[in-house]
Each structure stands twice: as structure tokens, then as C-alpha cells.
């Protein structure tokens, strides 16, 4: 098992854990936390591939990861703003009860 493989497995595991939380927890904020975890796992993947891939001097992987961090932060801000607004209207953040968009 190369170091890279190890990092990749960890990243995969983190990703799955984040996904599981996002898919199963009731609270909307926890879904967002799960999404943050998934993004972080992806970042780990990127950095691992940067370190163990060809041409690390091109800084491609790190740049990608940095931009990803920036975008994730922005997305977290907007998402949480939405959750707050929804809480104001529905008086709850329980996702099981939010089915007004059903067909």
C-alpha cells in the first residue's frame, strides 16, 4: 500500500461518512456539515495527488485545493443563510417535515 493509496482511502472514508450524515440526519445544518466534510475529503484527495503526482512544482493541486476552500466557505455562508431564513418561515429545521415542494 503506497502512501498515496492510504491517503486516498482516508479521503474516501471521510467522504462516505460525510455523505451518510448528509443523507440521514434530520437537521438541515447537519446536512451542511456533512457537505463540508465531503468537500474537505475532496481537498485531501487533491493535495495527496499533488504531492505524489508528477510535476508538484506546478502547484496545480494546491491551487485547486485553495480555491476549493474559498468556494466551500462561500457556499457554507450562503447555505446557512438559507437555513436561517427557512427556520424563520417554517419554525423548524427538520428536513423530514419540509415537503411542500412535493409533486
Amino acid at each position, binding site marked *: *500500500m503506497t502512501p498515496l493509496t492510504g*491517503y486516498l*482511502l482516508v479521503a474516501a472514508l471521510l467522504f462516505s461518512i460525510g455523505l451518510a450524515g448528509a443523507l440521514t440526519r434530520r437537521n438541515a445544518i447537519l446536512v451542511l456539515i456533512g457537505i463540508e466534510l465531503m468537500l*474537505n475529503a475532496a*481537498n485531501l484527495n487533491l493535495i495527496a495527488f499533488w504531492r505524489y503526482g508528477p510535476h508538484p512544482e506546478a502547484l496545480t*493541486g*494546491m491551487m485547486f485545493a485553495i480555491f476549493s476552500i*474559498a468556494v466551500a466557505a462561500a457556499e457554507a455562508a450562503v447555505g446557512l443563510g438559507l*437555513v436561517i431564513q427557512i427556520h424563520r418561515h417554517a419554525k423548524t429545521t427538520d428536513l423530514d417535515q419540509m415537503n411542500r415542494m412535493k409533486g
Partner: protein
Amino acid sequence: MSLVFYILSALTVAGGLAAMLLKNMVHCVLALTVAFAGLALLFLNLDAQFAGFAQILVYIGAVAILVVFAILLTRGSETPQEGIFSRTWQAGLAASAAVFAVLGWAVLHSMSQLPHETAMPDVNVRQIGQSLVGRYVLPLEIVAVLLTVALIGAVIIAMQEKEEPK
């Protein structure tokens, strides 16, 4: 596979698990912060110092605080009546298990094709700065716009509605 790697990864995974499994929302956020810290250390282990410090600054310093604020504003610290997991949590678990299976299988199966350890790259901040405004100037500017928009947007979305005189 050094010992440091195992410890750090164990820490991160534990933090993630805790974040997803704990009942109290604030505990979840704290666990998340631990996971963030673990990841930062992993970045440092991978000689991506700038990324690691950026991780600490942004994620732990901003995102986690943001989530805490959100929890406080939505009274998320109160425990819900019907439990913390959704009614159909099995389906979600199964879906994520399937995903992990596929990912894991892919990684393990392509192990032979993955590159081996290479020499440590010599990276300094000057290089990072130069590439930011050189090669990656466009993504930089776009991210700047994105952040501005996200800032304004988040403010507008979360703003309290003014009472319109009818």
C-alpha cells in the same frame, strides 16, 4: 505508511464520525472542528503548508464559527422530538455505503497505476503568490467575485424582512 499518518487519519475519521453521530448540535460542530484540524495536520504532513494553514484559518476560523452561529440562531441546540436521524435513514446509509464501496474498489484496483513516492517539492509562498497572480489570475478574480456575491447574497437571504406598509 508512517505512524504519524495513521494517528492523524484516525483522529480525522473519529472527528468526522463524531460530527455525524452526536446528538447535541454544538458537540457536532466541535467534532467537526477536530476533523478540520486533523485534516490541516494531514496537509502539513503532505508538505502542503500553505494549504494546511489556509485550512485552519478558513475552516476552523470561519466556517465552524459560522455554523455555530447558525445553530444558535435556529435554536438547533434543542433536541428534536422524533430523534436525530430521519425515518428512512437506512436508505441513506445504504447509498453512502455503496458509494464508499465503489470508491474504495476503484482506489484499490488502480493501486498499481498510481504513482510512487516522489521527492518533496520545494514550495515557498513567493511561488504560490506568483502563480496566483500569474497562471491562476482568472480563477483568483472569479473567486473574488464569487466571495463578494456570496457575502452580499448571504446577507440578503438572511436579512429580516422589513414590514411593508400595506
